C-alpha cells in the first residue's frame, strides 16, 4: 500500500494557487492595516477615531484560535458568484470580506462601443432581476441630455412595467430567501407567481428577461391587446398570495427565530455606508426615490413608503413583502388611469418612421437606416439620473461628447454599494446567520460586477 498523502502547507498553497486573488482576499490579522481591519470587523461610524481595538468584539472569545474560511464563488447560498471570506472563531464570524468581480462583464466598456439606440440592450443585462429599471435609468439619462419629452402614455407604461418588475424581483427574493432558510415551498411559490408576470412581459416585449423594452424616447411597443385583463389577473392573484406567504413565513416560529433581531444595522451606519433601498428603509429612514425625488408620474399615484424600525433581517423581509402590495396598488392605479396616445416620442430624431412609411418614401427609408446604423447624436454634456430599483438607488452617469455613442457610461449599482454592509451585518453573528445576511442584503451579482 502506498503512503497516505499528507496535506502539508505547500500542498494547500498549490491547491488554491490558480484561484487565489492575492491581496484582494481576507488576510491574516498581522498582515492587515488597522483601518482595513476596522472595516472588516464592521466598524463604520467609529472610523477615523484613533483608539480602536479590533479585538474588541461583543462576546467572549473562546480562545485565540481563529480560522479563515472561504465561501464561494460557487456556493448555493451566495446568490450567484459572490465570494465571501470569513474569519471564524468556532461558529462566530469575526471578520468578513466580500471578494467580487467573478461576473465582471465589462459592460461600462461595451456601453462605450454601442450607440445610444443599442445601449439599452447592454444595460438591461446588469441587474437581471429588474431589467426594466436598468433601462429606465439609462433612458432617462439619455433623454435628459437630448432634452426631449416622453409622451404621457409612455410614462405610465414605464411606471407600470417598473412596478411589475419590482414585484417579480421581490418574488425571486422571497423565493431564494425561503430556500436559504430551508423553506423549499416558498421557492416553488415565488417562482410560480413570477411566471405570471414573465408571461405578460413575454407578451409585451417578446422576452421573459432582459426585455430591452424601455428605450430612449419611450418604450419599444405598445401594450398588447387585452392587457388590462392580464394585469388585472396578475394584481388579484399576487395580492391574494402575499397573504399566503404571510401565513407560511411571517408568523412561523423557525422563520422568526432566524430573522427577528438578527443582524441589525442602525440608520447612522446605513447612511455612512451609503446603502439604499429596503436595507436603508429597514432602519426607519423613509427614503424612497419614488416619493422623495419623484420621476415618471410617481407624484400622481398613491402609495406608501414602507419603513422598518429595528433594521434587522425581519424588517427587511417585511418591507419587501409589503412593497409587493404597494406595487400592486400602484399598478391598479396605472390600470385605471392609463392615458391614450403615443407610446414613444414622435421626435424624428430618436424615433424611426413607422413601418408603413418605409415602403413608400425614400427619405423614411434612409432615416430608418441611419437611425439604426449610426444612431442619433446627443449634445455634449454629462448627466446623472437615478431611479429606485428594488435594491436601492440605481443611477446612471453618462458623459456625451456629442457623438452617437456615450463617451463614458457609469452605473451606480445599488447592490454594489449595499454589499459593503456585509462585514457590519455579519459581525458577531453565527455562521448560519451569515447566510441570512447575504440573503436579506439581496445582492445581484450581475449588477455588482457589471
Amino acid at each position, binding site marked *: 500500500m502506498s503512503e497516505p498523502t499528507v496535506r502539508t502547507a505547500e500542498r494547500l498553497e498549490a491547491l488554491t494557487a490558480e484561484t*487565489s*486573488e*492575492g*491581496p*484582494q482576499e481576507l488576510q491574516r490579522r498581522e498582515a492587515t*492595516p488597522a*483601518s*482595513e481591519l*476596522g*472595516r472588516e470587523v464592521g466598524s*463604520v461610524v467609529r*472610523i*477615523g477615531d484613533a483608539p480602536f481595538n479590533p479585538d474588541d468584539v461583543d462576546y467572549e472569545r473562546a480562545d485565540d484560535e481563529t480560522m479563515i474560511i472561504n465561501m464561494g464563488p460557487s456556493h448555493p447560498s451566495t446568490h450567484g458568484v459572490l465570494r465571501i471570506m470569513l474569519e471564524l472563531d468556532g461558529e462566530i464570524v469575526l471578520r468578513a470580506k466580500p471578494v*467580487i*468581480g467573478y461576473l*465582471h462583464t*465589462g459592460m*461600462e*466598456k*461595451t456601453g*462605450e*462601443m454601442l450607440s445610444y439606440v443599442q445601449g439599452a440592450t447592454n444595460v438591461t443585462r446588469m441587474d437581471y432581476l429588474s431589467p426594466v429599471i436598468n433601462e429606465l435609468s439609462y433612458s432617462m439619462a439619455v433623454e*435628459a*441630455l437630448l432634452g426631449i419629452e416622453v409622451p404621457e402614455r409612455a410614462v405610465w407604461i414605464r411606471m407600470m412595467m417598473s412596478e411589475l418588475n419590482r414585484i417579480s424581483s421581490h418574488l425571486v427574493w422571497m423565493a431564494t430567501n425561503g430556500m436559504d432558510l430551508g423553506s423549499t415551498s416558498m421557492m416553488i411559490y415565488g417562482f410560480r407567481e413570477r411566471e405570471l408576470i414573465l408571461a405578460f412581459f413575454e407578451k409585451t416585449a417578446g422576452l421573459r428577461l432582459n426585455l430591452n423594452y424601455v428605450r430612449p424616447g419611450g418604450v419599444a411597443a405598445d401594450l398588447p391587446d387585452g392587457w388590462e385583463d392580464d394585469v388585472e389577473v396578475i394584481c388579484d392573484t399576487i395580492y391574494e398570495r402575499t397573504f399566503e406567504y404571510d401565513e407560511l413565513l411571517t408568523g412561523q416560529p423557525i422563520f422568526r427565530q432566524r430573522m427577528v433581531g438578527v443582524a441589525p444595522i442602525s440608520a447612522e451606519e446605513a*447612511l*455612512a*455606508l*451609503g*446603502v*439604499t433601498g429596503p436595507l436603508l428603509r429597514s432602519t426607519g*429612514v423613509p*427614503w424612497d426615490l419614488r416619493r*422623495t*425625488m419623484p420621476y415618471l408620474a410617481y407624484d400622481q399615484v398613491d402609495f406608501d413608503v414602507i419603513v422598518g424600525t429595528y433594521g434587522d433581517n425581519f424588517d427587511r423581509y417585511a418591507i419587501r413583502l409589503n412593497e409587493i402590495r404597494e406595487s400592486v396598488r400602484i399598478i391598479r392605479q396605472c390600470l385605471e388611469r392609463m392615458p391614450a396616445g403615443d407610446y414613444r416620442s414622435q421626435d424624428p430624431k430618436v424615433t424611426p418612421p413607422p413601418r408603413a412609411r418605409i415602403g413608400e418614401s425614400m427619405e423614411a427609408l434612409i432615416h430608418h437606416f441611419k437611425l439604426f446604423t449610426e444612431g442619433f447624436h446627443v449634445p*455634449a*454634456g*454629462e*448627466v*446623472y*439620473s*437615478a431611479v429606485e430599483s428594488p435594491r436601492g*438607488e440605481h*443611477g446612471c*452617469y453618462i*458623459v456625451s*461628447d456629442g457623438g452617437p455613442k456615450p*463617451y*463614458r457610461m*457609469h452605473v*451606480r449599482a445599488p447592490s*454594489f*454599494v449595499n*454589499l*459593503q454592509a456585509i462585514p457590519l451585518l455579519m459581525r458577531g453573528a453565527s455562521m448560519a446567520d451569515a447566510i441570512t445576511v447575504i440573503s436579506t442584503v439581496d445582492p445581484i451579482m450581475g449588477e455588482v*460586477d*457589471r
Partner: protein
Amino acid sequence: MELPADAPAVITADALRADLGCFPTREQYHDLVAAFKADGFEVCADLCAVDYLEHAERAVPEGVTPTRFEVVVNLLSMSRRERVRIRVQAGDVEPEVDSLFDLYPGSEAMEREAFDLLGVIFRGHPDLTRILMPEDWEGHPLRKDYGTGRVPVQFKEAPGPR
C-alpha cells in the same frame, strides 16, 4: 443652490438638470466634500472616474484646467432632497486624489473600482487593491487607450461528437 459657508472657494457651474456642479482643485477636494458633509449631505451616492483622453476639449467653466482624468462624486442630501456633483481634475499621467473613506466609509468600494478600472490612486484608502479584475491583470481596462479586447467572430467547423 449655494455652497456651504465654510467650503473653500471653488468654481461652480450648474450642471444639467440643475444639480450644482463644483470644480475643486485637488487640494480643495477633500475640504469641499467635508464642508458638504457638515452641511447635510449625508450620503455619497456615487463616485466614478472618467478618462478624457479622446475628449480633451470638453466644456469646463473658466479657470479650470482640464486634465485627462477626472473623478466625479455625486453627493446626496436626504434632508434637503438635493444632489451636488463634484468634479475634480485628477491629473494627466498618474491621477491621484484624496480618499473620501474617512468622511464616507461607503465610498470604499467605489474608489477601489475607480482604481481598478481607471488607475486613479486614492491617498489614504485602506485597501487599494483590484476589485473587479483578477489580481494578476495588467492595465486598467476602462482607460481610453486600453482596447476593448474584441475577438473577431469566427465560424469554425463543428467539432463533431466528442
